[in-house]
């Protein structure tokens, strides 16, 4: 299977976000912020880019106590991420065969 290199996912922090979310069903905003070691506003900007691309959804479930924000990849986001990883693996394989 040949993957599709994805410029939206390629940025390091967005790649980290996608890799983390692809390994889970859903993750909390603060967990992603700690993973990246960035301010809330920086994470929000990255999430917005991915959200605008249709790669993730952000929800704030209602309930008692402090409302937490949850983030999950959409099926399109998972497909794009898998394609990007396959493209990266293809590039490495290409480098090996050229040596």
């Amino acid at each position, binding site marked *: 299977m040949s993957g599709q290199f994805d410029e939206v996912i*390629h940025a*390091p922090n967005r*790649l*980290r976000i996608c*890799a*983390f979310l692809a*390994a*889970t*069903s*859903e*993750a*909390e905003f*603060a*967990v992603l912020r700690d*993973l990246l070691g960035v301010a809330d506003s920086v994470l929000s900007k990255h999430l917005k880019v991915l959200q605008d691309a249709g790669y993730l959804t952000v929800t704030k479930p209602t*309930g008692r106590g402090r409302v*937490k924000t*949850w983030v999950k990849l959409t099926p399109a986001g998972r497909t794009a991420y898998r394609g990007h*990883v396959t493209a*990266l*693996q293809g*590039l*490495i394989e290409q*480098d090996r065969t050229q040596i």
Partner: protein
Amino acid sequence: MERNAADDLTIIAEARAAVAERYITPWWYHPVLGVMIAVYVTAFALGGTVVKLVAAAVFVLAATRLASTYRRITGVWINGLEAGRASRWSKLVGLVMAVDLAGSWGLHFTTGLVWPVLVLQPFAVVAVVLMGRRFDEAVREQLRSGV
């Protein structure tokens, strides 16, 4: 400095390892789930229609509460049926519940005895705890191995 594909795969591996480190199920989670299943099965096997319906509603509410508590504590959620190879352990938990339910109901229905139903439940609790822990181990292992 320009990144290459190998650097990107390292970023991905680190993110997956971060999930594995984060994915620590509280010690009480699987015992509580096992006891919830045992109580539900007992009520279903021994109770009348009203008891069966109430037990099902209470079980669904309790399971929802248990999952939301887990999510609040850990900050991550991995659906048991969306976990790749590790999902076989969560499917086995479902099978244990189905066998326990059918066995307990069948035993009581055919013999009228209560004690076999009660004797079955500790085994179900132990099976749920063991398989739940195997699921967690399998998830962590595949997070640390693949990309």
